[in-house]
């Protein structure tokens, strides 16, 4: 008996051929490239797309049907949303739609700047601390000290020192977020330091900066990227809380936080003043969180379980 396969085969008598197995397991379609990556990880796609939308809104705010966000018109204060004022007007008659769109710039700037700066600083501190043993205890005592002060209180205290400006808001929130990042990096460095390949590198005479660059840094990038997104989200919320207390961005620059702070007394009767910036803030923070979650799942499946 012959069995038709790719190569015809004469079967010796007495031998049984098993029936052909149905194709239960479809072959895995390997999705390559960025698009493939995004299709595989929808959370990253959704979060990233939302964030991109918001960045574009922030950049193109002047062209999206907005007026000067700081132009006051007290005769037209607290008007409800209408054809003239899509989101209504605030307590000084300023157009809320314009303020919210321009506020996107501030909030995103604060979020992204804090994320970048805190990550870089935390990376530096964590690397030095993890690698240079004598510096570890000093740096970690200092970081512990900073961490013992609740972040909001630290930010408020720092803001009380300086005058309100976006730069100072970024600075104070960054200082409050550095401890978390540096602890994370230090933890990664400490665990990696014990790995055999690092030992081998040291034994073969590689200099410390090279070791850090070649071996340690690439492994910290993934958890750091994820942590950076959480820091970004947290920074945007802290900015809104600082403005709420009155220690945040100066009122001449619209930010979601200070639009909400100015409208908070009237939220019962004119909820739109608080509602629109709150909605934008929530969506942005949601987007950043989704992005972070997605990246975490995508970049390191092991990490998905540990974070």
């Amino acid at each position, binding site marked *: 008996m012959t069995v038709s396969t790719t190569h015809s085969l004469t079967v010796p008598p007495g031998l049984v051929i098993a029936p052909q197995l149905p194709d239960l397991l479809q072959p895995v379609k390997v999705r390559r490239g960025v698009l493939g990556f995004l299709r595989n990880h929808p959370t990253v796609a959704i979060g990233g797309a939302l964030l991109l939308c918001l960045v574009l809104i922030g950049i193109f705010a002047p062209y999206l049907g907005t007026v000067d966000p700081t132009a*006051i018109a*007290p005769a037209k*204060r607290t008007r409800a949303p209408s054809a003239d004022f899509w989101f209504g007007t605030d*307590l*000084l008659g300023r157009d809320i739609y314009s303020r919210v769109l321009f506020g996107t710039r501030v909030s995103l700037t604060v979020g992204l700047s804090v994320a970048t700066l805190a990550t870089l600083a935390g990376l530096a501190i964590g690397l030095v601390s993890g690698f240079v043993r004598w510096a570890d205890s000093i740096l970690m005592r200092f970081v512990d000290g900073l961490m013992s002060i609740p972040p909001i209180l630290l930010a408020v205290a720092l803001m009380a020192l300086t*005058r309100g400006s976006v730069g100072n808001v970024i600075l104070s929130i960054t200082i409050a977020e550095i401890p978390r990042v540096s602890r994370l990096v230090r933890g990664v460095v400490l665990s990696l330091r014990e790995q055999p390949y690092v030992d081998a590198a040291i034994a073969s005479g590689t200099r410390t900066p090279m070791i850090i660059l070649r071996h340690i840094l690439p492994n910290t990038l993934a958890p750091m990227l994820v942590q950076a997104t959480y820091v970004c989200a947290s920074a945007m919320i802290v900015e809104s809380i600082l403005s709420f207390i009155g220690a945040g961005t100066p*009122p*001449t620059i619209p930010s979601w936080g200070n639009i909400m702070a100015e409208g*908070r007394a009237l939220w019962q*009767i004119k909820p739109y003043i608080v509602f629109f910036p709150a909605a934008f803030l929530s969506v942005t923070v949601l987007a950043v969180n989704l992005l972070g979650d997605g990246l975490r799942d995508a970049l390191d499946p092991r990490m998905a379980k540990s974070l």
Partner: protein
Amino acid sequence: MDRRTVLKGLAGAGSLAATGGLSMPALSQGAAARTLRFVPQADLANFDPIWGTQYVVRNAAALVWDTLYGIDATLQPQRQMVESEEVSSDGLTWTFRLRPGLKFHDGEPVLSKDVVASLTRWSARDPMGLMIKAIQNELTAVDDRTFKWVLKQPYPKMLLALGKNNTPCAFIMPERIAKTDPFKQITEYVGSGPMKFARSEWVPGAKSVFEKFTDYVPRQEKASWLAGGKQMLVDRVEWVVIPDPATAAAALQNGEIDWWENPIADLVPVLKKNRNISVDIADPLGNIGVFRMNHLYPPFSDVRARRAVLTALNQEDYMRALVGDDTSLWKPLPGFFTPGTPLYTEEGGEILKGKRDFAAAKKLLAESGYSNQPVSCIVAQDQPITKAQGDVTADLLKQMGMNVDFVATDWGTVGSRRAQKTPPGQGGWQMFHTWHAGADCLSPAAYAGIRGNGDKAWWGWPTSPAVEKEVTAWFDAKSLDEEKAAVARLNRAALEDVIYAPTGFFLNYTAWRKNVSGIAKGPLPFFWGVSKTA
């Protein structure tokens, strides 16, 4: 440490806590009707009415301490602690006799030596008191109920000084407390007023409690502002600080508080709609918005720049930003004195009336030599009145073509920075905003903000010999007509030299629940005569 033992212990403690107190709250129905819960305009952080001159301190102090005289609703000083007074024919000797039966909260009687010590402390801080002190010969106790004040020159406004409601008021304290240095806080809060201060229940920043003083002997006359019989119809007054206006509104609607001193104007419609809440104007004397410029440095050292601001300033913008769309709450103010009072005048106020002329303003500004230097405006964000004014000013100056450096900060920083005479750029300032109670702007008597005596003047240090001349004329005036004439000339001079820019006259509401009655209009909340049904 055995895990099981610890967990058992925790469980035991938990059940104990749960069964421990399912008791009813302490206040029964009857007691609740005798307690008035009030939300003040600000927090009562310290409580020395001579040392700290904030309005909220004075309002609380009026409960705990009594005064020799008190002004009534017609703005005339009436006797309060004093039974009779006598002025010598040359106007130099004032002799006063106290009412019998006056007691302090610790049971001690009120004696002349207490009065003398209190007046000595008060006159070291109060502007009118300082004037009296400057011409004082002696202030002594004659006997336990009589004291006299001998002067070198006559001072016709003596009773007004002793009975005025402008802070600091001449509160009478026990001698041992009044001997405290006027620049240090007192530490004991004992007075002879109708309520005692419950020190043990005081949580600064959150709550202050006052209890009825049962040995208080009110006068027989009907109460009118600080004059007349101060009858307390409730046993307990609790001042509850609620920092968030929306929360305070909700608490009033819910019945968790009885009286809210200063509801923000935008929330008033909600309160008016509520069947259980009454809303009314708090004080017909209202407030005056104040925009002060620094006269020591350019650009505002040049009167043309200051007049440019007045030419462009639109009081309606400021007032709407402050009190909203209710036009019954504000009036334009082409002057510096309270509308509806005897000395009100609009003399010289044309510059603030009529259509705003930005072209003329820009021209004046250019003439003064301004060429786009940054001009700093310090604005306190935590006070709604100053914040709203600051926003409007920033916009106004931008439209005038000025380069505004908007410094957003808090009231405390404004307080310290405005006292700096250094050039802007070295910690100084060029503009700030505040407000005066209308009750403080009735006449030049206690009106520090109107003075033009340069270095000694109020923040901004305006120099205006014309204004100073008229202030003296007012003090020397012998009749109401003479006073009016002097004030009219003063108003004109003050507007010409732009001592400050008045942004308008505005009123505040006050709101209370319908089961509370007896709330009177006035420059401060009066608690006597206020009662509550369950």
